[in-house]
């Protein structure tokens, strides 16, 4: 007998494997900020079990939990039963979209990307005072958040690349649209084709991404296969930087926030630390780090759809920064920088940067 929904077809066994031990509850950032068990992975798996048992229907009443997940993967990391929560959530969101139950913010995002080049629907891209689409050894791909929300950090990154005499170019980039897959839709083929075309046009052999999500999308999604086929390597800025010598150090107490997209999703933990240890003589880990890192609350579309909870999640991460007494929080993701900076309280005197921006600032001061 055919199943009513694709999620059941694909993931029935895995959903039923949830033993309701609640280990996900201990690490779920949404639960941590709300203390509402319906919002953690166990709560979500129970709803899906009841849908499969025919007790409830997949409808608007379930949006609040099924669309409120940062896809940080900490639940999966700690699940004794190995339930692939993020994959299940992504599929369920697709099923919900197909029955017409979707969070309006995500429906809006999909619509925006039909007519615009970025998730914000902005028409005036920042030009970053640099020539675009030229021939170069590297393409630097900024991403939407870096282009339209964290442009100061992006400018600093580009200045750093100049200081390091990297032969790179920007392109007329458009949203990689990977996020659409997380929120119930498909990657936008037209946008993907534009990016591929513009990257190939530069003759570059390597794309450096500023955004860990773009990095994941380019490397893992079928729509971007052509890049790999053409021999183009996609690397994240944190991997690229670890081989440089910067000739500067700081004695400030520095800590590092692992972005979920770079850490748990790509296993990149050591490269950023290698770079930071070169420049910071006083480095301290946050209480939850590497594969156990606490999410900043921005991912999975949660910042757009559930802003208040998203900020509450970021505050919990910043509490950990306060706990270790760091002066500087470094990370490698514009979304994390953006959310953490928005959540920072006036009494919290530490500063939050992408590593690139911090290094650039130190080099600038040294000159």
């Amino acid at each position, binding site marked *: 007998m055919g199943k009513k929904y694709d999620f059941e077809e694909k993931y029935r066994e895995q959903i039923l494997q949830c033993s309701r031990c609640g280990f996900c509850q201990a690490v779920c950032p949404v639960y941590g900020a709300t203390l509402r068990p319906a*919002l953690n992975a166990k709560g979500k798996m129970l709803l899906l079990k009841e849908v499969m048992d025919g007790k409830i229907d997949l409808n608007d009443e379930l949006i609040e939990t099924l669309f409120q997940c940062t896809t940080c993967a900490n639940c999966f990391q700690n699940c004794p039963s190995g339930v692939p929560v993020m994959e299940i959530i992504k599929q369920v969101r697709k099923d919900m979209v197909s029955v017409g139950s979707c969070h309006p913010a995500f429906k809006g995002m999909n619509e925006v990307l039909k007519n615009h080049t970025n998730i914000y629907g902005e028409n005036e891209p920042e030009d970053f005072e640099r020539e675009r689409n030229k021939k170069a050894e590297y393409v630097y791909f900024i991403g939407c958040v870096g282009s339209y929300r964290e442009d100061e950090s992006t400018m600093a990154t580009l200045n750093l690349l100049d200081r390091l005499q990297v032969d790179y170019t920007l392109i007329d980039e458009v949203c990689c649209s990977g996020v659409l897959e997380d929120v119930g839709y498909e990657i936008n083929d037209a946008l993907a084709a534009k990016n591929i075309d513009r990257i190939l046009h530069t003759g570059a052999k390597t794309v450096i991404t500023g955004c860990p999500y773009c990095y994941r999308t380019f490397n893992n999604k079928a729509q971007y296969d052509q890049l790999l086929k053409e021999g183009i390597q996609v690397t994240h800025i944190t991997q690229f930087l670890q081989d440089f010598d910067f000739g500067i150090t700081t004695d400030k107490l520095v800590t590092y926030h692992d972005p979920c997209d770079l850490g748990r999703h790509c296993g990149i933990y050591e490269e950023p630390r290698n770079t930071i240890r070169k420049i910071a003589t006083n480095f301290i880990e946050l209480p939850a780090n590497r594969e156990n890192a606490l999410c900043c609350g921005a991912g999975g579309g949660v910042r757009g759809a559930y802003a208040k909870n998203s900020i509450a999640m970021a505050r919990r991460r910043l509490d950990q920064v306060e706990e270790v007494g760091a002066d500087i929080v470094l990370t490698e993701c514009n979304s994390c920088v953006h959310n953490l900076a928005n959540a920072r309280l006036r009494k919290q005197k530490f500063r939050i940067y992408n590593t690139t921006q911090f290094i650039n600032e130190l080099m600038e001061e040294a000159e």
Partner: protein
Amino acid sequence: MDESIRQALIEIVGAQNYTNSLIDMVSFSYDASEHSGRPVCAVWVESAEQISKILQLANREKIPVVPRGAGTGLSGMAVPIKGGVVLDLTRMNKIVRISIEDRLAIVQPGVVYATLEKTLIPYGFFFPPDPASGKVSTLGGNVATNAGGLKGAKYGTTRDYVLGLQVVLPDGRIMKTGSKAMKSVSGYDLTRLFVGSEGTLGVVTEIILKINPKPTATSTALATFDELADAGSAINEIMYSGIIPSALEILGKETIIAINQNTDLNLPEVDAMILAEADGYTPEETDFQIKKIIAVFEKNHPKDVKLAENEKEVGELWAARKSAYGVLARIKTHFVLEDVTVPMTNIAPLLKGIQDISKKHQIQIATFGHAGDGNLHPQILYDGYDPDQVKRMEEATTDLFKLAIELDGTLTGEHGIGLSKAPFMTLEHDPVAMEIMRNVKKMFDPNNILNPGKMALEE
């Protein structure tokens, strides 16, 4: 539920702390057992005073109220089987006071075990009864179930550490039991009555806990046995040796096979594997203890005995035990995790009996558990969507409980009766004891509003 009652609840807790939305009702319908039951609404409470008002209302209107912590229980005790209001206590999560000089911690019921543990580390102290769910489970829940854990053999269960409580009774009165003193024989021991009472007598709103200095050294050893009987004699002799291991864990053959099928640990597929840990304050002290344990192992025809030489080896020895629950959870869509407990001399007969029950009912039962206090965890694996397998699981469970009682044991060492074991209460307790328990329930809760349907209190 009447609109007026709904409004009254909202007035007590505030609209933001009241819910009847579908997603919350589904999540509050379950714990970690096979049971479920949908509540009508739920409230997040913040104080004993709020709870008092809610219980007065519920008592007047005769509405079931089900107190709830993290919902990690394994016997259905937090499942609102008769509907009603779920009282979520997880937001009452303050550590009220830690007094190292008095060796006590005063906590609200929603404090997570791991949070207390973490808070005590800088003082060099700990709260010993550590349930496997300690990362999530709340101390209120631990009190309600009288939770145990790996360290039970040496340190006992939650009951041994609760000095006093603040409790809201079903009619709304607020009562204090016990004291902050280390010992007290002042009147009946009402504190002990509430520990393990599964939320059927009152709602615990504050807990005074005894805390211990945390031993700083441990030694760990592992032994494997081809014959169950040899493992049994080794356990008996350890009890005789004068050593009290801080952990003495056993894994049965089915569990070892399941671990091998699902990990790269490559364990010897023997009848039983025993893991022992000794704790203390110096390596000499723990070495002395572990060597005595190893000598016992060696006398009892082990296949293999290993002493962990460093942290890495300790991790390797514990890997199998720690992977057991997760590995077993993946094998079938459903499982029940039992916690029958027998005097230590009967561990080997219990393990043997479980193998026979498994064969008789043609159902997979993997066993591991705490040999040091006679508490085994047979995990019965089945497909809950197959009526035949469900039937065989139920028959096997019945046989298992009968066996535990025959071996002078108990239905439950640390998970509680809840719904799962309610039908078997009379196997263990004589008619007089059942009548007294039911009378106690009636005295506290004449209208049967608090967590009704649990512990066979209604027959």
